């Protein structure tokens, strides 16, 4: 049991933090909101190589993704990483800008043969799609070029990570994947999304704490009022819990530990809930200014809610956990 960051992880964290501070300013978010293509240089020049983290321990990728979430970074990086994890399960390699198409209309990752897939992030920005077909007990994974699918944009809360429905022409042949490999890939993806959500929550909480220290009313900083302090403390507790759950889950999934199923559901449940909690609190603490479009707080709030929903929201994972707890 050692949860300290390794030297390498500290380097990943600091490098990522500098990278996003430099290359992903708020202005880029505003531009990418109107035009997803505006995020292409960030991907091409700075993030594409980091998909190699898929070959590293999940805990390393989690450190990078937390910084990615802190910046509410737009574009295809997270979908490409998820695609790489799913491709790995089939012994395939998926380089370049990619996304992953699994879900049915409910947005849950249950393999099914239908060629129409829902909730596919950044499908139109990807060069290739990792498509999951077959059935729950026998998934099949295929890598198809973007030219072989029809992607239709579906407007969603977080337009910095646009969602599409995708129709795969000619059915999904693909490689059959063992159920254990599929489950492990799915857990990697859950932990990756959760790690990003922790970063989103951190940005929201940090911003709220900073604002509460600056904004003065009634002759003092609003952060000196207990009613506001306690809201921030409760959000911080939820966030620290989530961050620890993500670390635990990353270690369990990498080790293929017996706790990996419960740990990955716990991580997603906790991270989704915490990011939403931080978003609500940050909005309340910022008052009217946070409610404006121009302030930009809404980019993070949107990522928090859309990220919680992706692969199923906290309620869904509570149900999965309950099934695990009552199965034995």
């Amino acid at each position: 049991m050692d949860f300290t960051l390794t030297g390498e992880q500290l380097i990943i964290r600091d490098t990522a933090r500098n990278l996003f501070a430099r290359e992903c300013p708020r202005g880029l978010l505003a531009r990418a909101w109107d035009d997803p293509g505006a995020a292409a240089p960030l991907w091409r020049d700075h993030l594409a190589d980091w998909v190699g983290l898929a070959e590293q321990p999940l805990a390393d990728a989690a450190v990078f993704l937390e910084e990615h979430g802190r910046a509410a970074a737009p574009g295809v990086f997270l979908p490409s990483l998820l695609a790489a994890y799913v491709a790995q399960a089939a012994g395939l390699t998926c380089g370049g800008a990619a996304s992953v198409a699994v879900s049915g209309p409910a947005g849950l990752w249950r393999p099914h043969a239908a060629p129409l897939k829902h909730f596919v992030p950044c499908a139109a920005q990807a060069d290739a799609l990792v498509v999951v077909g077959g059935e729950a007990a026998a998934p099949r994974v295929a890598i198809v070029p973007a030219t072989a699918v029809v992607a239709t944009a579906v407007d969603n809360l977080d337009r910095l990570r646009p969602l599409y429905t995708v129709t795969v022409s000619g059915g999904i042949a693909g490689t059959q994947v063992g159920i254990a490999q599929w489950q492990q890939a799915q857990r990697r993806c859950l932990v990756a999304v959760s790690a990003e959500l922790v970063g989103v929550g951190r940005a929201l909480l940090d911003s709220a704490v900073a604002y509460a220290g600056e904004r003065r009313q009634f002759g003092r900083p609003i952060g000196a009022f207990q009613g506001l302090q306690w809201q921030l403390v409760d959000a911080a507790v939820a966030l620290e819990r989530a961050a620890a759950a993500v670390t635990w889950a990353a270690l369990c999934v990498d080790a293929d530990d017996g706790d990996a199923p419960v740990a990955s559901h716990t991580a997603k449940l906790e991270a989704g809930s915490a990011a939403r909690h931080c978003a609500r609190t940050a909005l309340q603490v910022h008052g009217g200014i946070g409610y404006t479009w121009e302030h930009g707080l809404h980019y993070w709030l949107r990522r928090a809610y859309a990220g919680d929903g992706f692969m199923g929201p906290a309620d869904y994972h509570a149900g999965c956990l309950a099934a695990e707890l009552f199965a034995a």
Partner: protein
Amino acid sequence: MRLSLADEDLAFRDGLLAFLDAHCPPQARAGRDFIGSGAADDDGVMVIPDWARAWQATLFDHGWMVPGFAPELGGRHATPLQTMLYLETLAQQGICRSVHFGGYAIVAPSLLEFGDAAQQALAPAAIRGDTVWCIGMSEPGAGSDLAGLATRAVDRGDHFEVTGQKVWTSYAMVAQKGFFYVRTNPDEPRHKGISVLIIDMDSPGVTVRPLRHITGKAEFAEVFLDAVRVPRANLVGELNNGWRITMGSLAHERGGLWVEGVASCLRAVDGLVALARRRDLAADARVTDRIARLYARAQSLRALGWKGFAAFAQGSSAPEHSLLKLAVSELQQALYECGMDLQGAGLAITDPARAEEGGRWQDSFLSGLAATIGGGTSEIQRNVIATQVLGLPRA
């Protein structure tokens, strides 16, 4: 980062498990949700059962009482990580090492750090449980705001004359000695002017009145001090510098204070799963989802504890630990309330013959109400986290 243990730490845990198999009495394995044996006399006043005295002495003699200490103090020079494994193993198995924590956990470390040679010599008996200690801190007018304490000790040269009242004094009715915080200089404000005195509980002028609490049992007391004569040799540390000693406790176990609480939460989750099954609620998603969310909180807090411990063991401060007291105590209350709710109208039944598990959930619900009050209320914890962890301005 790693999940697994090194060989020497596995060996440490194996040694502990073997010792527990060989020596731990069944009464110490009661798996109660809170510290204590529950043993009481006919009036509900706590007593220390013989098995508990013998068990604490056995732990001491085998170096398993406070493993981080030297053998002469009931330990075996365990590393911080090994101490964590020790605490977690005991907590997972629901084993209590002592039914009164003041002596080994607070008084002995304080005596060793701040006392003179004669006072340090009192430590082994405090740890072994041969001497039972109480700690006289809170007063009717000084609860969360301890710096307001008013018990007065007048300097008479070779002795102090102590007059005042303490309250919420755990174990005062079974203690031979007390570790009392008193005001020695009334002209100094607040934290200044406070000293620590060792007071023999059978001194003339000491009156102990057991204080029955919400469970109906009396585990703490009011202590009245009426012109009690205390030899000057009983002054611990410097005169008027007692505030420093209030910060004293087992430094090497401080990183693990959360372990017992978290482990009791995970045991309670297991209990809720079993209770839901017995009451035929395992297919009711409202019930199972509620339990799942409590489980997620408990596991996350366990992970948070280990994360904080990693920082602590490297000598850095661990903000995680200030969050844990708050979060664990609130989770405990949510768990016990859930255990009550699963019993339907039966949540009101405390008859041990009729209530689920002899009334465990009702008992723990009532005991658990203290968790957000004692040791710093949740309100104080939130204030501290706001200013010291988040860095918000002071009110």
